[in-house]
């Protein structure tokens, strides 16, 4: 038995909004792989829960008319990895969420929960940052869209106001067409692990594969919330696809990241990871794009 004060099950998104307004102290439970564990730990014990798990309308992935890929917030990691649209257009996201926990966690864990939890280590977050994802939020006043970088307000805190829930994650066509990405998770073991640091790099190369036309670098656990290496991206955009450019990435990202000491890893080790992982993820993203770095 879980220490739950009351459970309200939403039967539609509108009903969920209504329940959230009626019970402002209640916590939303999607898959529960974070919420139920926090109840066991005592952190969320004795609270009211609003379950949105039954809202099948928030499951699944589809490509809209304008090419935007819409990922329903309740889609499980496992279903994201297996989805044909993701495999074709956003393989980096499918690979990233395939590193969450273990197989059973990936059956229950949802991408919406992973992002609403607001933690910097979320395996989906750095990749969603590097894909310029947009969060769709539904609330009493209808729908509003927030770029994922603005959705994170602080550790464990996201931009959800009274009566609101996250309903979709959107990736615009311009954000993925022509891009290839690679995600690296650094942890002490291969499964059932929380990232010490995660790095996701997306690149778009010129037609001849010699120039980096665009680069987007997302990090988890390089700061209190996931972040983008904007400074490095500005420096690297337009550079040649070369070993020098890769080294430059490794140096420049140190300006962007600000990790801290924790029991998982020391600050200087994390800085080293941020640098090395960006270089390795860049190499892989270039390779996936059909380019080559001469060593």
């Amino acid at each position, binding site marked *: 038995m879980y220490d739950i004060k*009351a459970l*309200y099950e939403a039967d539609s998104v509108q009903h969920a909004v209504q329940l959230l307004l009626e019970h402002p102290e209640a916590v939303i439970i999607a898959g529960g792989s974070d919420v139920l*564990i926090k109840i*066991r730990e005592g952190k969320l014990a004795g609270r009211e829960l609003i379950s949105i798990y039954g809202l099948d309308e928030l499951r699944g992935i589809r490509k809209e008319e304008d090419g935007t890929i819409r990922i329903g917030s309740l889609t499980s990691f496992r279903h994201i990895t297996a989805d044909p649209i993701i495999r074709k257009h956003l393989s980096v996201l499918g690979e990233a969420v395939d590193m969450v926990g*273990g*197989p*059973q966690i990936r059956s*229950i864990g949802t991408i919406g929960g992973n992002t609403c939890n607001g933690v910097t280590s979320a395996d989906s977050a750095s990749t969603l940052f590097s894909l310029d994802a947009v969060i769709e939020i539904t609330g009493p006043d209808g729908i509003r869209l927030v770029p994922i970088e603005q959705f994170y307000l602080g550790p464990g805190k996201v931009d959800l106001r009274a009566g609101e829930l996250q309903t979709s994650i959107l990736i615009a066509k311009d954000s993925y067409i022509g891009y290839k990405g690679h995600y690296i998770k650094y942890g002490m073991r291969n499964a059932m692990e929380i990232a010490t640091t995660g790095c996701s790099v997306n690149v778009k190369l010129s037609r001849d594969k010699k120039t980096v036309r665009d680069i987007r670098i997302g990090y988890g656990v390089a700061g209190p919330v996931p972040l983008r290496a904007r400074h490095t991206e500005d420096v690297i955009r337009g550079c040649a696809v070369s070993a020098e450019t890769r080294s430059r990435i490794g140096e420049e990202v140190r300006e962007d990241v600000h990790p801290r000491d924790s029991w998982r890893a020391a600050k200087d080790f994390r800085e080293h990871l941020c640098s090395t992982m960006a270089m390795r993820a860049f190499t892989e993203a270039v390779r996936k794009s059909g380019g080559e770095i001469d060593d």
Partner: protein
Amino acid sequence: MTEDMRQFKQVTCTINGVRRTTMVDVRASLTDMLRNDYRLTSVKKGCEVGECGACTVLIDGEAFDSCIYLAVWADGKDILTLEGLEGPSGELSDIQQAFIDETAIQCGLYSPGFIMTAKEILDTGKLYTDDELRKLLSGHLCRCTGYENIMKAVKKTMYKRLGKKYPD
């Protein structure tokens, strides 16, 4: 409906091929319901926080940790536990027999969970590499066996089902 009436909910689901209905406390996990209401004690209570995999069951064919799954969510679902693998006269399934043959069991606490995930893996009918199998089985802990014999049991059953020779 008043709030106190919401503390219990009628849950109808298919368990091991049989349609069952019961009233569950909304605070119950699926592990609680399967063990307490249906006496399906193969569903083990290990860590109860989704780490060890001892409580693994298949829900609509996919492996889940039943300890971090609310019982009320099971309404309308198709659930399979280890008890559902045995034949009509209590015969063991091929994967259960393989766990015995390969000594993949010591204390046995974590075996049902492993076997349920193995069931899902084997039912795909695919041939996996060792690395793939390790990843697919990585949601389970076992402090006795050291995993090698578990790998062997799953791998041998996989080869047998596909009619291929087991590579020594």
